[in-house]
């Protein structure tokens, strides 16, 4: 006898349980169990009437714990936690036993078996409940401040978005100026707005917003803390001087962007005069003085080679096997821009799959109609680029759209449509312990459930540091990171599930295994009475229990699922002697 006062209610669910489980018999069996003060059956436990009955029973009998055996916990855990609360109990001292989906409905062919099983399950539930402790949601005060790492278009928009939510923002940019790649762009697809204008608009707003502090020539040096409360150390370079400051922030938004792929010398003729990359070409077009020129010579014919640095054969060393997503559309758009310039331009595009997805298809359509001709190159036979003795270039390829024909294109300029590659951010990765995928980009926890969150609490990723993205997609991702920050910090506090791990310090001998097992940094080493022991950072713990089996001393437990509780449930399932 533990002195607990448990109320047990077994539901008939009309006939859904009652037809296949002898509910009265179950109640009869467990009635005399230790600590069971009340055991009853109910036609519909979830009905308002029975809920009130439970509340009344609890008050009259002084119940302090509740077991309801009815349907799946997915349906009514919230309902009965609420009942428990109304009845003056701790909602975490309630156990839902599933005797419908996992008993009556699966054993409609065996009433004896179902009844016996139901008894076992209810007893397991009672045993578990006996060992429950009153828990309260972990309330964490959060710091209503965010740090944005990276001042490109995604970072700028994120900073502004965070400030608009009422959060204080620190923006850290490694370079001397803000704006990243986009700041250097002229008209961009699909709306032909200049990248430089977009960045200027954002920068102006960011600079004007009193809630945002911008640090250029700055880097994030160190980070510590847990849910909603992090300490970040920022180093600011001022010429040769180095200043470090500390800021408390609730979240860190990483928006460090990408690098352009740099072709190797000789790759599709790279290095030859007249062979340029897409970003170089775009700059030429953006800055062309009315007529497209290369080194002073007018350009009449341009040949584009797509998928340079993307979709590479996986057998190559360090291959970029991924598709860079933005480059087809960017090349198509740049070709359209080039076509707008004076002069009669001929443009030939050597592509593999034309990936102008979604609404960008319209750009591809427009480009075809404006003098661009597209040739499909075989995946396994890359086009050859050679320098002609006349000074021009010649690109040779087989065009799959024209049968087996090999076609030669004399070109004034060859544009290598280069993709995006991950930035070398080794330092930041080590500071933030950011997970990096096979492709070298940062990895989110889950692309669908939590697309901007990382395994590191409060550290969010957005934009092209996560995967190749267009500018507006990067901005959307930046705002999604704002939203996630807001979801954590906006209220100034957060309520976390109290079913977290716990360490019995007296048993702990600090071997560090639990800390190694936790990807969330939720276990720290502390000194207690002169001994080194592990301690759970409740606010960082996600309650998975992954640290429990690794402890050689059995010193860790997951609340609500403790070693003793699980064993008691096994006992409960087995102690029945059904007559």
């Amino acid at each position, binding site marked *: 006898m533990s002195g607990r006062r448990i109320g047990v209610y077994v539901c008939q669910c009309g006939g859904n349980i009652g037809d296949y489980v002898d509910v009265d018999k179950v109640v009869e069996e467990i009635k005399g169990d230790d600590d069971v003060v009340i055991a009853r059956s109910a036609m519909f436990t979830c009905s308002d009437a029975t809920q009130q009955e439970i509340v009344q029973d609890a008050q009259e009998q002084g119940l302090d714990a509740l077991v309801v055996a009815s349907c799946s916990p997915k349906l009514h855990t919230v309902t009965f936690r609420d009942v428990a609360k109304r009845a003056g109990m701790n909602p975490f001292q309630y156990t839902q036993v599933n005797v419908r989906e996992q008993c009556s409905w699966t054993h409609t062919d065996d009433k004896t078996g179902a009844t016996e099983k139901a008894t076992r399950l209810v007893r397991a539930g009672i045993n578990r409940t006996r060992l429950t402790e009153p828990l309260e949601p972990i309330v964490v005060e959060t710091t209503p401040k965010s740090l944005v790492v990276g001042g490109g278009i995604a970072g700028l928009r994120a900073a502004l978005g965070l400030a608009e939510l009422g959060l204080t923002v620190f923006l850290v940019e490694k370079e001397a100026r803000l704006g990243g790649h986009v700041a250097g762009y002229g008209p961009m697809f699909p709306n032909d707005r200049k990248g430089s204008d977009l960045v200027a608009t954002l920068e102006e707003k960011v600079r004007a917003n009193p809630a945002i502090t911008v640090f250029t020539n700055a880097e994030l040096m160190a980070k510590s803390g847990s849910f909603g409360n992090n300490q970040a150390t920022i180093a600011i370079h001022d010429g040769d001087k180095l200043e470090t400051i500390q800021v408390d922030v609730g979240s860190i938004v990483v928006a460090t962007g990408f690098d352009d792929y740099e072709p190797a010398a000789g790759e599709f003729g790279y290095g030859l005069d007249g062979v340029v990359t897409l970003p170089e070409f775009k700059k030429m077009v953006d800055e062309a003085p009315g007529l497209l020129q290369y080194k002073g010579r007018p350009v009449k014919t341009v040949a584009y080679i797509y998928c340079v640095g993307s979709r590479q054969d996986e057998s190559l060393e360090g291959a970029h096997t991924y598709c860079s997503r933005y480059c087809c559309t960017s090349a198509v758009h740049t070709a359209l821009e080039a076509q707008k310039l004076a002069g009669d331009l001929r443009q030939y595009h050597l592509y593999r799959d034309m990936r102008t997805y979604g609404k960008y298809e319209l750009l591809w359509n427009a480009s075809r109609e404006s003098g661009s001709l597209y040739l499909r190159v075989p995946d396994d036979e890359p086009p050859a680029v050679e320098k002609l003795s006349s000074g021009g270039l010649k690109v040779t390829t087989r065009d799959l759209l024209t049968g087996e024909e090999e076609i030669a294109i004399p070109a004034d300029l060859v544009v290598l449509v280069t993709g995006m590659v991950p930035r070398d951010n080794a330092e930041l990765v080590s500071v933030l312990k950011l997970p990096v995928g096979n492709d070298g980009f940062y990895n989110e926890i889950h692309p669908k459930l939590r697309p901007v969150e990382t395994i590191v609490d409060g550290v969010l990723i957005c934009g092209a540091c996560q995967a190749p993205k267009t500018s507006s997609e990067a901005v959307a991702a930046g705002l999604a990171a704002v939203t996630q920050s807001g979801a954590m910090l906006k209220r100034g506090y957060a309520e976390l599930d109290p079913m977290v791990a716990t360490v019995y310090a007296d048993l702990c001998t600090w071997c560090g295994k639990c800390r190694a097992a936790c990807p969330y940094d939720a276990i720290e080493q502390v000194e207690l009475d002169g001994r080194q022991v592990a301690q759970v950072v409740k606010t960082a713990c996600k309650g998975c229990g992954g640290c429990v089996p690794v402890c050689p001393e059995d010193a860790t437990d997951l609340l609500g699922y403790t*070693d003793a509780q699980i064993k008691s449930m096994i006992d409960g399932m087995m102690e029945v002697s059904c007559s």
Partner: protein
Amino acid sequence: MAEDATREDQAFHPRILVFSTNNISDPGIDLAGSSHLHYSPNVMVISLPCTSGIKPSWVLYAMQRGFDGVFIAADGEECAYLPDCAERTAGIMTSAQALLEEHGLEPQRVRMAAVCSVCAEPFTNYMHEYSKSLAGLGPSRKATA
């Protein structure tokens, strides 16, 4: 009728403890119920947040208390907690098997498979197959007794 019951009682129906996960595999097992699929009433389920939190000692304890087999209904790739959940659970399996062998029990008495939130039929099939294979092994307590 009475004769049938006696014969039934004499036949060995293995008791199986299933560890499921609150978000993924337990809903799959629920769906088996909603679809009124049948498996043995000797199958009982304990649901946890994540199968990476199962202690190998629980597997042994279950055997000692009279279960004949333990089935881990893991999340596989869908686990929202731990990206390496599948490997961790596999590791727990291996430790549990070793522990069982130490105690003279067959390692086949613990098994694991990915069961997702709509895997009603696969789960039922696992239970049928596992019951059959455990029946072949006989009761677990013969070894510890």
